[in-house]
């Protein structure tokens, strides 16, 4: 700090705004937000109520159906999606293993959660991605927001979510969607922007309207990239359900949280592997499905 003796104080010690002012600003923002929550919290709760119903309904359906029925449906979906015997057998085996170690119900709760999160991310993400692809200005506006959503530590945005919604499934769901939707938006945007200019020109030359162009050319050609986005979204939702368990989401995440708190090594890993199992099932199935949709690009002439 010898250098400081030669420099004016201003250049040596960062001139922070004084504590009093910061405290004031902090307090007014906090109070403002609390006021906002007090006056609009009920309205917001009412708006997201359908999500709660949907989530509860799906969770009940998953948990209370006989396990054999769920397993059969799951294996059937995996087979229809992937048309791949190995993936199908792998799915059946890992689900049986999960059941054997007593994690069936928790896995069902997590599955319901991830399914709803993925659906919401797709429904929200694809339209935003399309808008971004259509306008450079929207892209310039949305991109920084996505950057914030992806890099902001998830614990930070849990604070306002919990303030508004309290503890429960819906706030967990919103936290997961905030974390999982950016790749969906980004890859939809990218996929549409990468569509061959020549083909778009041809669509224009035949007199396609904007909607016809989107439906017939841009979306189908962007599909592989969009499928990659869906895949990413699923993986990120699965990773996030553990964090979301901190604000009351049940399932495998909650078990992991308890294992951390109590240093239950085995319980932690069992639940962790159950998550990995689901992740791999989702990943392989959605990728195989995506490849099947692209069968036209596989056979290359000569």
């Amino acid at each position, binding site marked *: 700090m010898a250098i400081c003796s030669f420099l004016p104080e201003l250049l040596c010690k960062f001139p922070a705004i004084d504590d009093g002012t910061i405290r004031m600003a902090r307090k007014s923002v906090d109070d403002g937000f609390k006021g906002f929550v007090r006056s609009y919290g009920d309205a917001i709760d009412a708006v997201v109520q359908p999500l709660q119903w949907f989530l509860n309904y799906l969770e009940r359906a998953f948990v209370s159906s006989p396990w054999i029925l769920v397993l059969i449906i799951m294996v059937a979906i995996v087979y229809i999606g992937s048309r791949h015997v190995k993936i199908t057998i792998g799915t059946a085996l890992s689900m049986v293993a999960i059941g054997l170690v007593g994690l069936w119900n928790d896995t069902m709760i997590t599955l319901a959660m991830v399914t709803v999160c993925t659906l919401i991310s797709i429904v929200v993400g694809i339209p935003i991605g399309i808008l971004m692809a259509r306008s450079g200005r929207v892209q310039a506006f949305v991109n920084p927001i996505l950057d914030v959503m992806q890099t902001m530590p998830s614990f930070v945005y849990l604070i306002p979510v919990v303030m508004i919604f309290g503890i429960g499934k819906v706030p967990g769901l919103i936290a997961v969607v905030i974390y999982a939707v950016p790749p969906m938006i980004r890859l939809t945007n990218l996929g549409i922007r990468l569509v061959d200019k020549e083909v778009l020109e*041809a669509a224009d*030359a*035949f007199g396609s*309207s904007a909607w016809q162009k989107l439906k017939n050319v841009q979306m189908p050609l962007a*599909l592989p990239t969009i499928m990659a986005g869906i895949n990413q979204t699923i993986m990120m939702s699965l990773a996030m359900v553990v964090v979301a368990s901190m604000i009351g989401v049940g399932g495998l995440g909650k078990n992991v949280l308890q294992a951390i708190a109590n240093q239950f090594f085995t319980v932690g890993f069992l639940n962790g592997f159950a998550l990995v199992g689901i992740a791999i099932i989702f990943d392989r199935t959605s990728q195989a499905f995506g490849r099947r949709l692209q069968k*036209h*690009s596989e*056979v290359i002439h000569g």
Partner: protein
Amino acid sequence: MASHAIEVKNLYKIFGPRGEDFVDVVKKGMGKAELNEKHGHVLGLQDINILMPGGCITVVMGLSGSGKSTLIRHINRLIDPTAGEVLYDGTDVCKMNENDLRQFRRHKTAMVFQKFALLPHRTVLENTIYGLEIQGIERRESEKRARGWIERVGLKGFENHYPNQLSGGMQQRVGLARALTNDADILLMDEAYSALDPLIRVDMQTVLLDLQKELKKTVVFITHDLDEALRLGDKIAILRDGRVVQQGTGQQIVLSPADDYITAFVKEVNRGRVVHVETVMRPLSGNPEGMSLPAGTVLEAAARMMTGAHVATAHIVDENGRPIGAIDLQTIIAAMVTPTSHADRQAA
């Protein structure tokens, strides 16, 4: 069928954010290089005036960067002009509103692209009906029409293949079938055959000529290949640096090239397939001798017929069978081999 001409009038295209501001400077004579250097704008087209007669094939020829692809995109306004008019049936395409333009593109024009621009996720049949689907025509009806054209371009049996499964030549047949299925008066072909190998290219040229005999569409064909231009074009316009250097029939261009640039081009051309017998015949003196050749026969064909018939002289008859001139083998051969130079032409 259609006798709809396309008239391009005083068309200018200057690429850049303030293109309109520089039309006047270009009109006063500023060239492409100077405009780019001084103002950072690219001169795409300047003062284009071409009448493309209805029912004929008009070829626009030029090397890369000459503005030929820019020009064809003005006809269906994939590119907006900076100044000028593109008239079709008395309507200025450049002034159409969005909806009229879409209707014009759907019903009056069809386009074939250099890189085919097929939809990779659709089969040959689904690609072919694309134009009709956009128009909202019932699927069964459009499939029927599409199947007809797929068969005409020689792709029967490939209806359910994907473009990736086909060779370049076959893909361009799909492109052609897609354009023809639209049943539009104007057929725009942007370097449609440039990506194909020479043999397939000639093959596809024949397909186009055969179809044109009965369809009589207004075809605008872009190419960088003079041989292709001469084979296909009822009328040829040659573009250089965004300006029309010469326009006329193939014969006019080969026999009297407008400048050194075109002279250099036509030097390599097989004149025997371009020049007609009546162009080099001498006036009839006395009775018609030897075999008779119809006017419009090209020199190569005349030479083949005469040598086949073992005659050295022939007379040329018009469409009513009246003799209009005489020719001998020596004249034919001389006309086929003499390289015309710019100087020769001026002396003549």
